[in-house]
């Protein structure tokens, strides 16, 4: 099939960008979206033009690198990562708009690549547990209730792709931050830092320039890992609980 792509091209962080139109021909419906972009880039290189820069790594839906907004939807029409999106979702002759994540906290580095290191700083401020290093602890030393293990696992699935921020009309990182807070605060291993974790991570989230949550639920409609809206509610509860305890 033949497609028309309108891609955001921006040469650097401080330069002006614009949507640029490209034609790609002979796209197989079995290609992934990234493979389709690879085809375009090979074409561009042969023509002596600058290839489109986009983030990608594992290409199997677990790393969260390949973030881009396709036709106004983070990661495209399917709720998955861009690498797991296949061209059979599109039709011959389609015009596809491809834009980078848009958020003040995610400045564009080049074309579709954005700087997501704000997420790293949120994690760095509390997304860990303090444990002595050395030999592995005895596995049964800390019993974890089944329900807590399930909740923690559900939230640990977050791959930090940033689709929640990209989809949120306020560019809010509440779903990302809450996934990590709920993951660790549910487990007994996360207990000692339960209050400081949520307070510090929310402070960092605010400092990085993410917006607040207005409960639109847009984040959950695009999350490739299905982090639920209740994650945000639980973090709000944890935050208010920590404030009451006065850490």
């Amino acid at each position, binding site marked *: 099939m033949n497609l028309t792509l309108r891609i955001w091209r921006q040469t650097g962080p401080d330069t002006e960008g614009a949507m640029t139109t490209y034609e790609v021909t002979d796209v197989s419906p079995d290609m992934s979206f990234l493979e389709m972009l690879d085809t375009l880039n090979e074409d561009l290189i042969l023509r002596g033009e600058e290839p489109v820069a986009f983030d990608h790594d594992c290409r199997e839906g677990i790393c969260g690198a390949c973030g881009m907004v396709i036709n106004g939807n983070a990661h495209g029409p399917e709720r998955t990562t861009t690498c797991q999106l296949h061209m059979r979702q599109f039709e011959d002759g389609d015009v596809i708009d491809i834009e980078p994540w848009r958020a003040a906290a995610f400045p564009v580095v080049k074309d579709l690549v954005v700087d997501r290191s704000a997420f790293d700083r949120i994690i760095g401020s509390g997304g860990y547990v303090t444990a002595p290093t050395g030999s592995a602890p005895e596995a049964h030393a800390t019993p974890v209730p089944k329900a807590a293990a399930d909740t923690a696992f559900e939230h640990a699935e977050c791959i930090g792709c940033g689709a929640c921020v990209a989809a949120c009309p306020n560019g809010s990182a509440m779903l990302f931050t809450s996934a990590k807070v709920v993951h660790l605060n549910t487990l007994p291993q996360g207990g000692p830092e339960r209050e400081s974790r949520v307070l510090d991570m929310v402070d960092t989230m605010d400092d990085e320039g993410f917006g607040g*949550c207005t409960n*639109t639920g847009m984040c959950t409609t695009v999350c490739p890992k299905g982090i639920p809206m209740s994650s945000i509610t639980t973090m709000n509860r944890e935050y208010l609980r920590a404030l009451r305890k006065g850490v």
Partner: protein
Amino acid sequence: MALATRPEQRDKQQREKQRPTRPVSTAGRLWRSTIGKKTVMAVSGAVMLLYLIAHMVGNLKVFFGPDDMNSYAHWLRTIGEPVLHHEWFLWIMRVALLAAVIAHGVAAYQLSRLDIAARPVKYVHQRRRTSYATRTMRWGGIILALFIVWHILDLTTGTVNPNGEHGRPYENIVATFDTWYGNVIYFVAMIAVGLHIRHGFYGAAQTLGVGSPTRDRALKVTANGLALILTIGFLSVPIGVMTGVVE
């Protein structure tokens, strides 16, 4: 190794110095964070919602004739007597409501500024949209603030009321809804209040951490029910005047 890490540490220390220092008090920390400001909005919104329910029920007195309505209005001024002086209860309530409106408005303004700043560049291709009630929260809030000013001038002070007779609310209400503009203003505002409550009640529950996957349905049903009952209850008065049930 030591050489390589030293400048990094110095950078880190400088960064930490530049960071705004966190207020130590719980109230300061609450007001500074986005979740804290939303908590203020949720609590002040709940106060106003409770008042609205009482206000709507009181309005229905209009259907029992001028004597019922006017004596009810008089009774409101005697609540708490003889402990409270005449009209004191009313003034205590007015001060509390004014505080709630101001806290709600200031928090909403500050949060909206943050939210808009967090998404400085709009998507070229806009696809997914949030629900109508969610999208109109800000404009709806502004409409409601303006309405409150008009409503007080109309039926509390009587400044803009065509009748404007103190102690005769029944006659004043009928006079307002005998004008076309009185009806238009009131209808717009009451639809706005319904939409505002529909999303606001649900959002407040999430912010206060009351929501959970099992309660989600019940919360949405309650939010819609409250919005519908309040809008219909308030609108029944002008409809009653227009149809001649109240005259």
